[in-house]
C-alpha cells in the first residue's frame, strides 16, 4: 500500500453538515466523537472549516434552502474528498419523502460515498459506516 493512501485512510478529518435534519442524527454524530465512542481513535477530528476536511458527514433531508450551500461547501473541500450520508433522511428523504421542501437525498445534489441507514443510526452504526468507507479507500 502506498504511503499516501496509508496517510489518507488514517487521518479522515470530518466536517458535519446539517442539511435539514431533525437533530437526532446530528446528536448521534456528535456522540460518536465523545469518550464512549471516540472517533479520534481512527485519527478522525471534527473540523469546522470545509477547507480542512476530507469527509463530509451529511445529515438531514436537504431542504431547498440548504441545497446551494451544501453544494458550495462540497466545492470548497479540497480533493480528495468523501461524503457520508447519515440517516434515512440523507439517503432518501426518509419520513420526509414527498414533502414539498426537501430534495429526498443527498445524492441528488452531490456524490455520496457511503450510506448509513437508520433513523437515527446508533453511534456504533456511524462508526461502522466510517470504517467501511475507510476500508473501501484502502485502509
Amino acid at each position: 500500500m502506498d504511503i499516501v493512501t496509508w496517510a489518507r485512510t488514517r487521518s479522515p478529518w470530518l466536517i458535519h453538515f446539517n442539511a435539514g435534519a431533525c437533530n437526532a442524527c446530528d446528536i448521534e454524530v456528535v456522540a460518536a466523537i465523545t469518550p464512549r465512542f471516540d472517533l479520534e481513535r481512527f485519527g478522525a477530528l471534527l473540523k469546522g472549516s470545509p477547507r480542512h476536511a476530507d469527509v463530509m458527514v451529511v445529515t438531514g433531508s436537504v431542504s431547498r434552502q440548504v441545497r446551494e450551500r451544501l453544494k458550495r461547501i462540497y466545492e470548497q473541500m479540497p480533493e480528495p474528498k468523501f461524503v457520508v450520508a447519515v440517516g434515512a433522511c440523507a439517503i432518501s428523504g426518509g419520513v420526509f419523502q414527498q414533502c414539498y421542501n426537501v430534495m429526498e437525498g443527498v445524492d441528488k445534489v452531490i456524490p455520496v460515498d457511503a450510506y448509513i441507514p437508520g433513523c437515527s443510526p446508533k453511534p456504533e452504526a456511524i462508526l461502522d459506516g466510517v470504517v467501511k468507507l475507510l476500508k473501501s479507500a484502502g485502509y
Partner: protein
Amino acid sequence: MGKREFTIHVGPQHPALKEPENFVFKVDGEYVVDVEPRIGYNHRGIEKAMENRTYIQNLYIVERVCGICSNSHQTCYTQNVEELLGMEIPERAKYIRVLLAELERIHSHLLWLGVAAHEIGFDTLFYYIWRDREVVMDMLEEISGNRVNYAMPTIGGVRRDIAADKIPKYLKMLDVLEERTKFYKNICATEKTVLARADGVGFLSKEDAIRLNAVGPNLRASGVASDIRADSPYLVYDEIPWNVISYDSGDVFANVLVRVDETFESVNICRYCLEHLPDGPIRTIFSPLGKVPEGEAVSLVEAPRGELIHYIQSRGTDKPYRYKIRAPTLGNIPALCEKLRGGYIADIPIVLAGIDPCFSCTDRMVFVDEDRDKRWEMNGEQLRRYGVEWYK
C-alpha cells in the same frame, strides 16, 4: 458609528449543534448592535405532509419534527388525537409516558449543558457531560429500542412496557445521573473560566421575558415560574410531587442553574414513576387505519425547551385536516434577539446556546458589507443553514 458597523451572518454548522438558523448581526467592533433572524433552513413542510398521511403514519413524522424533543412531540400529538377520539388511556401508559418525557428532559438538558461547555471552549467538560449522558441514552435505548426516536407513545397508550425486573437497574442508573449532575453543578458554580463566560452574559429581564413571550427554561431563568406541567397538568403530573424551578438573574448562568436543577427534579420524577408504576394494560386499541371524529383540539406539553403547542382540526377522515405545530425555540427567538443586543461577538455562541442548543450553529458566518451593498463569502459561508423548528 454607522460606517463602522458591518453585518455578520451567523449561520449554523455546528457539529454540536443542530438547528440551523441564520442571524444577521450588525456589529460595531466587538459589540453587537442589532440582530435579525432568518429561519427556515430546516423547513421541510411537515404540516403539509401531515395533511396527506394517516394518523398512524403521522405518529412517526411528528416524532421527527425534532429528534431531541421527539417524545414531547409524540405525546402532544397523541393527546390531541385521543381528545378527539374521546379515548382515555390506561394509568400505566400515563406513567410510562411521563417517565419517557422526563428521561428525555434529562438527556436534553445534559446535551445542552455539554454544548454550552463546548461553546465556551471547554471541551473537557463537554466530553465528560456527554460521556455521562450515555447512561440515560442506554436507559432509553433499553426501554424503547432506539436512542433518540423512541416511538413509545402511540394513539391509545404506549408501545412497550417496562419490565419489572429491570426497574432496580434503572433506579441505580438514575442514582448515577443524580450524582454526576451534582458534580456538574458544582463545576459550573466554581470554575472561574466558566463563571467568567456565563455570569451576567445574555441578560433578559423579567418584564422583557413576559413581553416577548419567552417560554421554557429561558423564561424561568428570568424569574417567571411558569411550566406547563404545573400550570396545565397533563398525564399524571398533578399526582407526582415535584417543583417548578426558577432563578431571577436572567443570564446564561441562570439558564445553566435552571436546567441543572430541573435535571434533579426529573430524576426524582423518574424515580417516583418507576416506584409507583400502576399495574394494568399499556394501551387501548386504535385501528391502524382508523378515522378520527370531527373536531378541533389544542394540546400543550412542556418540552425540554419549553412550551410546545399542537393544534389539530379533523374533518372525520383518516387524515388530519390541519395540523399545526409550534416548537419552543421559535417562541424564544424574539427574546433571544433581545439578549444578544449590546453583547460581545464572542458571547454570541453561548447566548444562542443559552436559550437552547437547538442551534448553535453559530460558528459559520457570512459577512455582508452594507456600504458597498455587496455580500462576500467567507470561507465558509458555508454556512449553513438550517432552520429550525420549523421543522414541521
